[in-house]
């Protein structure tokens, strides 16, 4: 058995002889590492999903939203808040070159009932093209069509979650649901999409034809909330956004340069950039949490080791008396700290990975477990243990044999 091997054994015995205290010393690292691994897993998962979603929705999507215009001049009194976009605006945008679709839409929380069951859901009133733009397909039955929209037919397409909330595993296709006392015939159910990046259930929805929704359940409002503009592939979105702005300002008679837009134009790339910004913020937060918890954990290890050195001074003395070199004592206490670091780090990484695996299905997030981050935090734990264990170990090694052996 090599000397280093014997010292490892000695250190292991030292840690095991004080199990409770050693566990407490390692607890800080455990919690810190577990928290960081979970945070990393979730943020990676959200980021993956975000990117997936944007790519699925198409990075060539532009959203125009009605917004409060800052009124100016004589029209100030006539401009109503959030009431700037109309289906006619959308029709005008459709005629713009480079626009594949321009789909007006309203989304509103609504109460839906069927056969005695009543639930709140998100109603989306739009044109049939919305399904193409959002990449929705029918899982059962069919989507509503242009003829049905034009003739204000009371038809609806439901999401899987809404259907489950209303009638469980049974099918709603061919049945009627009631929205604001108006019966709508369910013609289809969408293929499930899951959660979006913000944790919203994309299947807890009902799609209604815009015209019938406006006339029957939305108090005949003339305005829409947003217009989804799908650009034709290979087009400069910035140029298109400029064209859209020009047309809409024209239509809204915003002629003076001082007139502020009464709408907002947002591209998917901008949305992605915003999300990335949040991601970076979250990353910085993770690093902060990691830093603070590692610092606390390190100080914990240092405190426990310092107490250990003080308490075990006679032990150090007798070891020196029977021939331990200064560096043997240094190694012993440093190895003890490393065992605490490795133990706490490994337990924390395991706990973090376990929690991440547990959270995954609950949050509906699809992410790979962050093995590399777990391994990395294990190494960092080891480094923390060495850094914070060094001073106590040096203190132990600095004791002269006689100092150590005579102190009680």
């Amino acid at each position, binding site marked *: *058995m*090599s*000397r280093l091997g*014997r*010292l490892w054994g*000695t250190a292991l*015995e030292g840690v*095991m*002889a004080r199990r409770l205290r050693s566990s407490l010393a390692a607890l800080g690292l455990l919690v810190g590492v577990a928290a960081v691994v979970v945070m990393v897993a979730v943020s990676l998962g959200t980021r993956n999903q975000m990117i997936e979603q944007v790519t699925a929705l198409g990075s060539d999507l532009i959203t125009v939203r009605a917004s409060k215009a800052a009124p100016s001049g004589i029209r100030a009194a006539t401009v109503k808040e959030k009431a700037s976009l109309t289906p006619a605006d959308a029709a005008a945008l459709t005629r713009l070159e480079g626009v594949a679709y321009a789909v007006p839409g309203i989304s509103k929380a609504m109460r839906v009932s069927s056969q005695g069951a009543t639930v709140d859901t998100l109603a989306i009133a739009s044109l049939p093209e919305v399904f193409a733009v959002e990449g929705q397909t029918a899982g059962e039955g069919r989507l509503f069509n242009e003829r049905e929209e034009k003739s204000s037919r009371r038809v609806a397409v439901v999401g899987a979650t809404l259907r489950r909330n209303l009638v469980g595993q049974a099918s709603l296709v061919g049945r009627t649901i009631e929205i604001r006392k108006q019966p709508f015939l369910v013609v289809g159910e969408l293929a499930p999409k899951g959660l979006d990046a913000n944790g919203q259930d994309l299947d807890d929805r009902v799609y209604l034809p815009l015209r019938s929704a406006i006339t029957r359940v939305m108090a005949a409002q003339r305005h829409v909330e947003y217009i989804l503009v799908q650009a034709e592939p290979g087009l400069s979105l910035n140029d298109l956004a400029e064209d859209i702005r020009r047309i809409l300002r024209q239509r809204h008679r915003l002629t003076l340069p001082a007139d502020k837009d009464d709408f907002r134009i947002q591209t998917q790339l901008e949305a992605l950039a915003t999300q990335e910004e949040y991601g970076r913020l979250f990353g910085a937060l993770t690093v902060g949490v990691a830093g603070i918890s590692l610092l606390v954990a390190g100080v914990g290890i240092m405190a426990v080791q310092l107490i250990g050195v003080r308490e075990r001074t*006679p*032990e150090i*003395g*007798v*070891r*020196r*008396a*029977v*021939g*331990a*070199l*200064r560096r*043997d004592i240094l190694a012993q206490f440093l190895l003890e700290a490393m065992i605490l670091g490795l133990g706490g780090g490994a337990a924390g990484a395991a706990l973090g990975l376990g929690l991440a695996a547990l959270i995954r299905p609950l949050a509906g997030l699809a992410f790979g477990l962050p093995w590399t981050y777990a391994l990395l935090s294990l190494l960092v734990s080891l480094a923390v243990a060495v850094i914070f264990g060094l001073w106590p170990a040096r203190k132990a090694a600095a004791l*002269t*044999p*006689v100092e150590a*052996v*005579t102190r*009680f």
Partner: protein
Amino acid sequence: MIRLKGITKTYQTGQVSTPVLLGVDLEIAGGEFTAIMGPSGSGKSTLMHIMGLLDRPSGGSYLLDGHEVCDLTDDQLSVLRNRKMGFVFQAFHLLAQATALKNVLLPFVYAGPYPTDAQERGRRALAAVGLEHRLSHRPGELSGGECQRVAIARALVTDPDLIFADEPTGNLDRRSSYEVMAILQGLSAQGKTVVLVTHDSHVSEMCSRVVRLVYGRIESDQRNPSPLSAAAMLAGLPPEQDQP
């Protein structure tokens, strides 16, 4: 074996300097069983720590087997302690969490190459102090006398030339003291050099030489041609003391 010349030791605590040893000349030959006596604070432990290479003198010369040790490095002193010396302390200094055998094997942790027969030697050392039946007991499960015998086994497991014992019987009852002394006398008879610090004149009568230290100087140095036999004293104890 040991040759001290003009050894001085002064402790410096802040501005206060405490002279403890004021020039000690002492020669101890191989195989001698020397008791160091003297009033409390006279520097007995200090002198023993210097002889045992646990501490360095402030001045003077110390030849161990003809070699000056004052110039050696800390590592060299450690190696010498490991190879040549064994220590027994008043408070036993055993590792509380380790078994008797594990305690006895402690010097081998720091031996150059780990001896292949370490376990066997540990067992033999424990048998030599009459504890072959207590191998896996921990210090908390042993009596004071047994603890001190484990400490002696640890001191002799490496088969050192020199054994230093600072008041080894200070915490023990009469019977245990005799047992410890009988073991040390046995080691002396095997030719080992034993240096023992004691307050107990009864214990010093079992040694072949008694050095009296007073205020950091050697006041007297007497040979004892016929030391008491600890084994005989043990046999002469009334039997009721067998039951504690």
